[in-house]
C-alpha cells in the first residue's frame, strides 16, 4: 500500500471518522444532564483549586503581568497545552487494545484510528480553548493578536503527541508494561514542565535541564500567547521542535505500517 492508497482510504472512510468522533462525545455524555459542559468544568475546577491554593493561600508572587488573576490565567493557558498532549498520548497508548476486536474482524483502513483520536482530542481542545479565552475576557484580558500563533503551536503539539503516542502504543501491544509505566512518567513530566510554576522560579541548573524537555516549548508558547500576549519567545526552538515532531510522526507511521500485521496477530 502506498501513500496514495493511504490517502484514498482515509477519504473513503471520512464519514466513518466524523461519525466516530461525534459518537464518542455523544456516548460520553449520553446520560448526564450537563452534557458537554463537563468537558470544561473539569479542567476549570482543577485550575480553580490550584489558583486558589497557590495564589491566595500560598500568596505566590507572580512577576511579569499586572493582573490580579495573572496566576490563574498562567495556569489555565499552560494546562490547556498540556491537556491536548496528555489526551492524545494516553489514548494512543491503548489505541490498539481498545480497538482489538474491530482490527481483528473488520477490514478497514487502520490509519483512521489515530485520526479519530486526534479529531476528537482536537475538538475537546478547541472547545476548551474558546472557554479559556472567554474566561480571560471576563478577567479583563482582550484576545491578543498573538493568538494567530496558537493554531501553529497546536499543530506542533499534535504532531509531537501523536508521534510519541503511536510509537508507545505500538510497542505497548507487545510489551504491556508501557501502559502501566507511561501514566506515571506523565505525572513526573507534568511537574517537570513549568505549568503550575514558572521556569524563572527554578535555580539556574534546572533551567538548563528544562531545555531538553520538548513540552517546555509547547507549554511556554501557550503561556506566551494567551497570558503574556506575545508571540512565542522560543520561536527558533519551536521550528526545530516542529521539524523533530514531524520526523517522529513520520517514523511512527512507518513503524505503524510495518508492524500492522504483527499488531493484529498479537492482539
Amino acid at each position, binding site marked *: 500500500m502506498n501513500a496514495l492508497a493511504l490517502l484514498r482510504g482515509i477519504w*473513503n*472512510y471520512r*464519514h*466513518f471518522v466524523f*461519525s*466516530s468522533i461525534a*459518537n464518542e462525545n*455523544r*456516548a460520553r455524555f*449520553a*446520560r448526564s444532564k450537563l452534557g458537554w459542559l463537563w468537558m470544561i468544568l473539569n479542567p476549570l475546577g482543577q485550575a480553580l483549586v490550584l489558583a486558589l491554593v497557590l495564589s491566595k493561600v500560598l500568596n505566590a508572587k507572580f512577576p511579569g503581568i499586572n493582573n490580579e488573576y495573572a496566576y490563574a490565567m498562567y495556569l489555565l493557558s499552560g494546562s490547556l497545552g498540556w491537556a491536548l498532549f496528555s489526551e492524545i498520548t494516553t489514548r494512543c497508548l491503548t489505541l490498539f487494545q481498545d480497538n482489538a*476486536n*474491530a*482490527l*481483528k*474482524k*473488520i*477490514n*478497514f483502513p487502520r490509519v483512521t484510528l489515530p485520526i479519530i483520536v486526534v479529531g476528537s482530542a482536537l475538538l475537546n481542545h478547541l472547545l476548551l480553548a474558546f472557554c479559556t479565552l472567554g474566561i480571560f475576557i471576563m478577567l479583563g484580558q482582550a484576545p491578543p493578536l498573538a493568538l494567530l500563533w496558537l493554531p501553529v503551536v497546536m499543530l506542533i503539539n499534535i504532531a509531537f503527541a501523536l508521534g510519541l503516542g503511536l510509537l508507545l502504543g505500538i*510497542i505497548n501491544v*507487545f*510489551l504491556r508494561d508501557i501502559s502501566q509505566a507511561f501514566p506515571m512518567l506523565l505525572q513526573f513530566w507534568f511537574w517537570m514542565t513549568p505549568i503550575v510554576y514558572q521556569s524563572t522560579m527554578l535555580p539556574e541548573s534546572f533551567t538548563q535541564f528544562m531545555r531538553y524537555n520538548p513540552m517546555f516549548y509547547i507549554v511556554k508558547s501557550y503561556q506566551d500567547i494567551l497570558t503574556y500576549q506575545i508571540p512565542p519567545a522560543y520561536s527558533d526552538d519551536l521550528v526545530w521542535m516542529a521539524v523533530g515532531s514531524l520526523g517522529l510522526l513520520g517514523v511512527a507511521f512507518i*513503524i505503524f505500517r*510495518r*508492524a*500492522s*500485521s*504483527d499488531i*493484529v*496477530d498479537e492482539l
Partner: protein
Amino acid sequence: MSEHKIRLTNICKSYRKYSSEWLRVGTWFGIPFKPKQQADVLKNVSFQINQGDAVALVGQNGAGKSTLLKIITGTLQPSSGTLEVNGRISAILELGMGFNPELSGRDNVYHSAGLMGFSHAEVDALIPDVLSFSELNEYFEKPLRVYSSGMQMRLAFSVATAVRPDLLIVDEALSVGDAYFQHKSFDRIRQYREQGTTLLFVSHDPGAVKALCNRAILMEDGRVINEGSPDTIMDFYNALIAEKENAKSTQVHYHDSGKLQTVSGTGEARVETIGLFDKTGLSKEFIHVGEEVILRVQVKVYADLPKLVFGLLIKDRLGQDIFGTNTYHTNQTYSDAKAGDRLTFAVAFPANLGTGTYSITTALVSSDTHLENNYEWRDLALIFNVGNLNKDYFIGCNWLPVNIEITKQ
C-alpha cells in the same frame, strides 16, 4: 472456466514468538531475527472459489477456519502464499461490531455501516430496509443498552447484510435470534445466492451446510484435508470426529451408487446384513408412499460389550436428515452382548416419505451419541426408492395423510 472469486495459493500463516520483543521491533526494519518459536496455524492452504459457489468451511475448533476467513477478509496478513480476491467482500465475522450501548439503534447503524465503508448518504438509503428487516419498530430510536441480545443480533445482521455483496463471508453468525429470525436471515442469504452472491461460510450445523452450500471444504490442523459435496464432507467429518474419540481407522470407498461411503468405528460390533422388507417378508428396494415396511439389520458382536445401542438415520438424496433415532432413546439399550452374538434389529415403520431416493445410515454405539464408543458407523448402508402409487399427488419429503374439508357459508 468460470471466473474465480477467491483463489488461495499455498497460504501459510504462522505466529512467531521472539525471545525478546525488541527482536520483533528489529524485524520491522528488515533485520532477519530468528523467532524462538513458531506456531503454524495454516499450512499450504490452496483452493479456489468460483462465481456463484456456496462453500462451507468445516472442521473442528482450532483447525484454522477462522484464521483463514480473517486472511480472506483482509484483517490478517498471510505469512506466505498469495491470495486473489475479486469483488466487494462483506464479512460477518462477528455481529454487532463497533456497537455502542449508549447510542440509538439508528446511530449505531450509521456507525457500523461507516465501518464497512458506506457514506452517510448511502446509509440514509439503507435505513428503511434495515428498519423493516430487523423489525425493531420503536426500539430503533432507543439506546442499544435497552435491547435484548436477540434484538441486537437482529439489528447487527440487518446492517451487515443490507447491501448484497459479491462475496459474503459468514463465521458461525447465522444462529442468531429466535427461530423466526433465523429463518428470515437464512432466506436472505439464500436470496443473495440466487442473485449471484458467492458465499463462504463456516458452520458446525450440518443442516445449514447441506441446505446452503454446493461445496464443502474440510480443514484439519491447518490443512485442507478433503473437498467435495457437502453431503460427503459432512459424513466424512462426522466419521473424523468419531475417529478422534476412538482412534481407529476410517474407510472411505465408493458405494455402488457412485457416492462416497464412509465406514468408521472400532469394529467390536458390525452390521452384517441389512434389508428392507414388506409385511409379507419380501425384500424390497422400491416401496410406495405410506407402505408398512420393516428394516432388518443383522449385527455380529466381536467383543463383550456391556452396552450396545443401535441407531438409524434416514437421509434424502441431498444428504439432509429426514429421520433418525436409536435404541437408547427408545429405552432398548442391549446389555451384556457377548462376543459371537448375532442380534437382529427389526424396525417397523410406515414409509410416510415423499417420492425420491433415500439412504439409511446405521450406527452401533454404546450410548446416545457416536462420540463415546463408536463400534461402527456406516453411511449408505442401504439405499431405497419411494414412489407414489396410490396417494394423491403431493410434494415434499413427507407424506401427511391430510383431510381437506371445503364448506360454503
